[in-house]
């Protein structure tokens, strides 16, 4: 699945790069002069102790926060500011730490909502519904059913989201992001609050998304086991600064990383 438009980026080339980005809130520096890149087709982990600026980093890539300094290059285009719907248009999808599902809707509705950008029939066809709008709806329902099959959530299609257990909500949120057919998928602590089995399931899904659909993934995660098993490369942040960048093995042995997690003063 590939998002339309934009230059073709080959597997292995840089899909997104963050250059010298800094972000402050009032007097608090959330992110200081951070640079790293994400290559197409890889799974990139962003890790670090609490308060390191990981979520802020994702928010910047997404367009929720505008950095005071620095630029972001995505699919060949460089820009300093991006709005969330521009990011979505460009093929970036995302999940949240605190599940951001539409609570007033069912599972199916949430997934169909993810297809919004792909649905083109205008207002007047929607008024009429029968005819072109219905055909479009059915076509997208097909795609959404593929995702439902992939994530094995057939039995909760019509369940209102508020009634779903936490693990399923997280899975559904992943599904909604997948429905956007993104080039880059940002996952903010997808395993948070899960037990071992749920984590194994979710890890499997993440790997499958990457291998079957070719989606590039950036994920924030605290569980080191997950990070080591899933990711191709890791970037480590601490207090808003990048302290390590490399393969999981390289990062695991890095003294600065160990110190950061153990809380050694520096």
């Amino acid at each position, binding site marked *: 699945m590939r998002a339309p438009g934009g230059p073709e980026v080959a597997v292995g080339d840089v899909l997104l790069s963050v250059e010298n980005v800094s972000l402050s809130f009032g007097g608090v520096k959330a992110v200081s002069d951070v640079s790293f890149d994400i290559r197409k087709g890889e799974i990139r982990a962003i890790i670090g102790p609490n308060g390191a600026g990981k979520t802020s980093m994702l928010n910047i890539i997404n367009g929720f926060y505008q950095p005071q300094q620095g630029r972001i290059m995505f699919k060949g285009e460089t820009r300093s500011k991006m*709005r969330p719907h521009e990011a979505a*248009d460009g093929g970036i*999808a995302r999940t949240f730490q605190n599940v951001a*599902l539409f609570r007033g*809707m069912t599972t199916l509705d949430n997934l169909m909502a993810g297809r919004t950008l792909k649905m083109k029939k205008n207002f007047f066809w929607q*008024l009429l*519904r029968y005819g072109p*709008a219905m055909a479009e709806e059915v076509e997208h329902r097909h795609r959404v059913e593929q995702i439902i099959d992939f994530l094995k959530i057939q039995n909760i299609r019509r369940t209102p989201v508020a009634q779903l257990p936490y693990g399923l909500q997280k899975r559904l949120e992943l599904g*909604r992001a997948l429905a956007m057919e993104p080039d880059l998928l940002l996952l903010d602590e997808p395993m948070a609050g899960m037990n071992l089995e749920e984590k194994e399931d979710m890890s499997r899904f993440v790997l499958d998304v990457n291998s079957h659909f070719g989606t590039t993934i950036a994920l924030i995660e605290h569980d080191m086991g997950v990070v080591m098993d899933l990711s191709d490369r890791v970037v480590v942040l601490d207090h808003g600064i990048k302290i390590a960048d490399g393969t999981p093995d390289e990062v695991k042995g890095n003294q600065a990383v160990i110190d950061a997690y153990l809380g050694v003063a520096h």
Partner: protein
Amino acid sequence: MFYRETGQFKTTYQADQAVFPIRQDRIGIAIILLLAFAGVPLLASEFAISSFFIPVLVFSLAAIGLNLLTGYTGLLSLGTGAFMGVGAYGGYKLATWFPDVNILIPILASGFVSAAVGVVFGLPSLRIKGFYLAVATLAAQFFLSWCFVRIPWLVNYNISGAIEVPTRTLFGIPITGPNATATTRYLVTLSIVVLMTWLASNLVRGRIGRTWMAVRDMDLAAELIGIRLYRTKLLSFAVSSYFCGVAGAMMVFLWFGSSEADTFSINQSFFILFMVIIGGLGSLVGSFFGAIFILGTPIVLRALPGLFGLSIPAATVEHLTFMVLGALIIFFLIVEPHGLARLWQIGKQKLRVWPFPY
């Protein structure tokens, strides 16, 4: 036992997504439409049609309008009365400018005037949210109310300051003005309401309805999916005001036959808001329930003393009605904040497994 889905298998996604996927529901809606189009005119008195059925239809449409904005999109509006008024006065001007055009056209076109005004007062929604946006709609309400009274051009310089509806016909039968019978007006109103409810139902089940609900539930996440917040909110204002405008035009043309200075006041806005709350936010059928409930309760309360052989002065009954209505609103919010529509849904669920408890 009766309300089962067994044996009704859907083989296409289209069938799965139908409005009434269960056959029993389809039969039910057919019966209701039959009763509405044939039963009421034949069996109900002119008085009942005039004082209950037509008002219920008009207010249901206005409630649907408000529900689209507040229930589906989450934008609280206290200006419903004013938007109805814009439709009424807009329709009147259109009707007098084009006296030879079929009256249905001005009534349906009046909604566009209302939609335009609605969009203007919805412009603040770019930067203002929630309760504060309601204040913007209050500004609309009070400003437009003032306009209705202070601009004599709107009523074609009528000395009484009110709209006087001219007699217009359809297929030779008078449908507006003093010569139109209640039954005729009822059937025209019913047709318009059925058509517009169908259109609203199409909208909310499709892409647009989902974008509205997404904005309501979590606008940050909606942006993330690529939904353009501002456009979605303005569209909601436009469509909602269209519905309210047509309802207002119908109120003047097909119900009262005239208008008064305070027909479209803030009290009207509250009235319709109550219907939407009690009927169920985010539910089209709830709009009908709410209208029936709010309009029917005073009638029932006024009739009760007589039934029990008590005689209570009319003024007292009015006061008691206020008290009961207020108490019922609170009661509903405690017991079922999602309104009568949710109770209806729960009832249907229970019916599906009847005679088993669950």
